[in-house]
């Protein structure tokens, strides 16, 4: 990002979320279609803040959307009420999605960052 001089700044330490004005409310536009501004946190990679990562198991998921609703960082990717996966660029590894998952066994579990997702799925626990 280009460093600006003091005279180039918008007063109020203001940043706009999008690079252009939109015709409608952003909530009606899919994230992939939104013109995110360079300064939007969407454009910043913060995946390395994470120590443990949630791994998603499609075979067990019932698409209840609990994880999507509860995720404090909008890092659960879902379309048309179908769970797709985790946004590893922004997920901080808080584990709330795992905590709220209602299936048995859970469809999301925390694993160490170094473990490959396929290996994680291979060690998934049985129903209790």
């Amino acid at each position, binding site marked *: 990002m280009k*460093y600006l001089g*003091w005279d180039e700044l918008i*007063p109020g330490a203001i940043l706009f979320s999008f690079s252009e004005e939109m015709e409608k*409310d952003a909530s009606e536009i899919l994230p992939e279609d939104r013109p995110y501004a360079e*300064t939007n946190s969407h454009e910043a990679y913060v995946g390395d803040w994470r120590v443990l990562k949630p791994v998603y198991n499609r075979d067990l998921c019932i698409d209840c959307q609990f994880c999507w609703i509860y995720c404090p960082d909008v890092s659960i990717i879902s379309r048309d009420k179908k769970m797709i996966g985790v946004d590893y660029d922004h997920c901080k590894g808080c584990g709330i999605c795992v905590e709220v998952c209602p299936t048995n066994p859970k469809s999301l579990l925390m694993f160490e960052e170094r473990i490959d997702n396929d290996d994680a799925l291979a060690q998934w626990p049985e129903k209790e």
Partner: protein
Amino acid sequence: MAEKMELNEVEVWDGNMAASQALRQAQIDVVAAYPITPSTPVVQNYGSFLANGYIDGEFVLVESEHAAMSGCVGAAAAGGRVATATSSQGFALMSEVLYQASGMRLPIVLVVVNRALAAPLNVNGDHSDMYMGRDSGWIQLDAFNAQEAYDMTLMAFRIGEDPEIRLPVMSHQDGFITSHTAENVRPLSDDEAYEFVGEYPAVNPMLDLANPVTYGVQTEEDWHFEHKARQHHDLMTKVFGKVEEVFAAFEKKTGRKYNIVEKYDMDDADVAIVALGTTVETAKMVAEKLRKEQGIKAGVVAPRLFRPWPHKQIIEALQNVKAVACLDRSSPNGAMGALYNEVAGSLYQCENRPVVTNYIYGLGGRDFTVEHAEEIFKELAANAEAGKPTTPLQQFIGLRGPKLSFY
């Protein structure tokens, strides 16, 4: 739609009522407030105006002054005209959020009824709270009586809200001496007042959902300095001209003329008192008296605008006098008084440097009397004659016990 209030040409209002009426007439969208003596009646009156149908906006009663100013910040960022009032401990509790408001360039109007800061606990007027706000990035206007409290509060909206300025403004008045003394006040009619203040010009409102915006982003060493510099630049270069413009428009409307630095009897003055608040009126009276009775060419200089500091106007007002006394109504707690430091700093830059001395007075509402002002002017006359200080640089006046002075 709010009812209009029929006002007389001359109303008998105290400073609090004057400020409340100015707030009512400005048709504010949100007032978030927590009451504290002596500014309580500002929001109490406002609440009764609302209950009686004279106000359309929201009035949010919150749990502290920190919350009051936080509510104001939110409402102002959302895109509304916003104001509140406070004093003393409440001002201190707000102080964290004052910097948020100015840093986000939100033109909130804060009526500050000046009061001492504890401990020891005291509800009376001094300038400790006003001084506490001096580095907060707000514009500070000072009223010396109830009429001015009305006028400054109305003008505060028009100054701060100008899209070129976008800075919050404090409208100061002295606790009790102004806030609780009923005086003749000539208000504008509701229509005239609103026409003067104008529609609120929203800038980047957060409620514009098609254009989402973040206010007061986190910046570290790579960006923070530039944002602060931008704010300081605007305070130093844009505010003086805007204040003059609004003062001129107000004079045209009301005939009442205000200046960034007020001068009384200064044309040929040898000695001058520099003061803030109600003390200015006492000093004016005494200057006039001493000119008549003793031939001392005495004058008074009073910053109407305390922040941004009117460096040039202070030099212009004081460069030709021989001796100046700066009167500080706040304990400097280990330094020279703030007004002394500001004035001396400005006068150091002029060719004819007057002798400048400092008086600490009136803490916690202690009376500042005619005798005190006379004593100061006489000491100034001796300083002017000697061409150097004949007294210690800092003296306490109106204090019991052994004479207290420094340097």
